């Protein structure tokens, strides 16, 4: 059997015909917006040293690993943010830089039940602009790019890594991370009971699995939170919301768990009704540069292009 003449490896993905045209036209419309706002496009290495990710809690087992001629471990690109941070750091500057990128990252999958190891991303990093000013620029760019997709029923959800980190440090319990990640209502009730948590903290924890939705959720959170630093985190999201020019798509999730350990502030998830997984994700990461021995506040996001494509394909079936 010469099956390799007909079949591609389970790990790979190809795009032909309409899919390829669609992906390229989505890419082009995103690129136009990034260019228009002065984001410089980067083409990043396909191979990186695995040691670049030491200490960043990045899962090595999902990397495609090789040994290079020096006998050092290298891997196919696993993300864009860390390589871009390195590039900025090498430039030895402290000025604000705006970068965009398009390309694939590669994650191994245990079984390929319709999952691919090649993940096409397009996104931006805004490096060196701290606090509300940076958050607002990133937020408005997310909204502008999401709208240019012309998809129906989009949602942009905001969460706070600051809120999450403060809450888990007050309660200092690993079990809580799983409960929040999976919004386990039953386990949360058990957790509150087993730890004898009473009063305001009890009310807050029991509400958390359903603490998502429109701005009314944010105002409800304000009444539940008493800890100063939790308050600060909620207020930050409120301020961002109030200052945002466009509030139409925005919703909140206070139970959002950071998808990257280096997130420190606002986090984003973009959804289409027609895609089973987020089409966009991102967040503020003010401490990633500590790893490179510098202090540079940063924020960024990326589109998961194949999820965007899925949403297009489903919408076509429904609206045509």
């Amino acid at each position, binding site marked *: 059997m010469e099956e390799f003449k007909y079949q591609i490896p389970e790990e790979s993905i190809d795009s032909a015909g309409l899919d390829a045209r669609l992906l390229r036209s989505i890419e082009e419309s995103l690129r136009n917006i990034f260019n228009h706002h002065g984001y410089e496009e980067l083409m990043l290495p396909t191979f990186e040293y695995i040691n670049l990710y030491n200490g960043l809690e990045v899962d090595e087992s999902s990397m495609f690993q090789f040994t290079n001629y020096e006998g050092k471990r290298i891997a196919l690109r696993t993300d864009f943010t860390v390589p871009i941070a390195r590039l900025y750091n090498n430039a030895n500057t402290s000025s604000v830089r705006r970068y965009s990128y398009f390309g694939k990252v590669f994650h191994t999958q*245990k*079984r390929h*039940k*319709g999952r691919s190891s090649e993940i096409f991303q397009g996104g931006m990093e805004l490096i060196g602009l701290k606090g509300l000013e940076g958050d607002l620029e990133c937020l408005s760019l997310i909204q502008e790019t999401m709208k240019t997709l012309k998809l129906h*029923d989009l*949602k942009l*959800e905001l969460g706070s890594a600051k809120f999450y980190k403060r809450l888990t440090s007050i309660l200092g319990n690993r079990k809580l991370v799983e409960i929040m990640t*999976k*919004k*386990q*209502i*039953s*386990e949360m009730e058990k957790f509150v009971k087993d730890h004898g948590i009473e009063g305001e903290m009890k009310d807050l924890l029991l509400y958390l*699995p*359903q603490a*998502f*939705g429109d701005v009314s959720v944010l105002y409800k959170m304000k009444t539940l939170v008493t800890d100063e630093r939790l308050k600060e985190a909620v207020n930050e999201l409120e301020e961002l919301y109030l200052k945002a020019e466009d509030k139409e798509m925005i*919703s909140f*999730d206070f139970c959002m768990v950071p998808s990257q350990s280096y997130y420190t502030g606002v986090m984003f998830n973009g*959804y*289409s*009704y027609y*895609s*089973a*997984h*987020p089409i966009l994700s991102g967040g503020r990461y003010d401490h990633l540069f500590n790893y490179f021995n510098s202090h540079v506040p940063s924020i960024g996001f990326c589109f998961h292009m194949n999820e965007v494509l899925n949403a297009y394909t489903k919408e076509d079936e429904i609206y045509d």
Partner: protein
Amino acid sequence: MIKIAITKGRIEKQVCKLLAAQGFDMDPIINKDRELLIETKDGIQMIFAKANDVLTFLEHGIVDVGFVGKDTMMEADFDDYYEMLDLDIGKCCFALCAYPEYKTKTFHRRKKIASKYTKVTKDFFARKQEDVEIIKLEGSVELGPVVGLSDAIVDIVETGSTLKANGLEVIEKVEDISTRMIVNKVSLKYKKDEIFKLIDALKKGE
């Protein structure tokens, strides 16, 4: 409208009973013949599938909600969903089982453990910091020790009668199992009210 996938068999019967008790229209399901997809008067679409497929349908967004046993969830490689309710039904446990000698015997080689649930077995021995050889069997796992293929098994224990009939016993409990309600992460954001209506009803039924 929300779409639900329910594990065929015992879980299907128990979940439908819970929902019927809370006033949901379950007649089309109780009276169903061989249809795999059913719509109720409450605007709920239901499909009935094998446990692993319930997870696959949920992952691909074919259904919003799934009812599945914790045993299937623990063995699966996909866990990017919300696990909103422990229904406290279908209760049993994973356990390490063997002949009574297992407890006192000294092994001068790697222990051999037979199981249908190789991931659960591997995770369990990793927590115990033990290295064992795992042999996958598809059914009647008790045969492992009986025919001398393995020293012990990791399997689901309900009443323990099969174990007893073969002279085996529970050496150690691995993990409790019960039926869970799981939700696709994107679905929850778009159908909060409908899904919480279901959650509230099921909580009342507990």
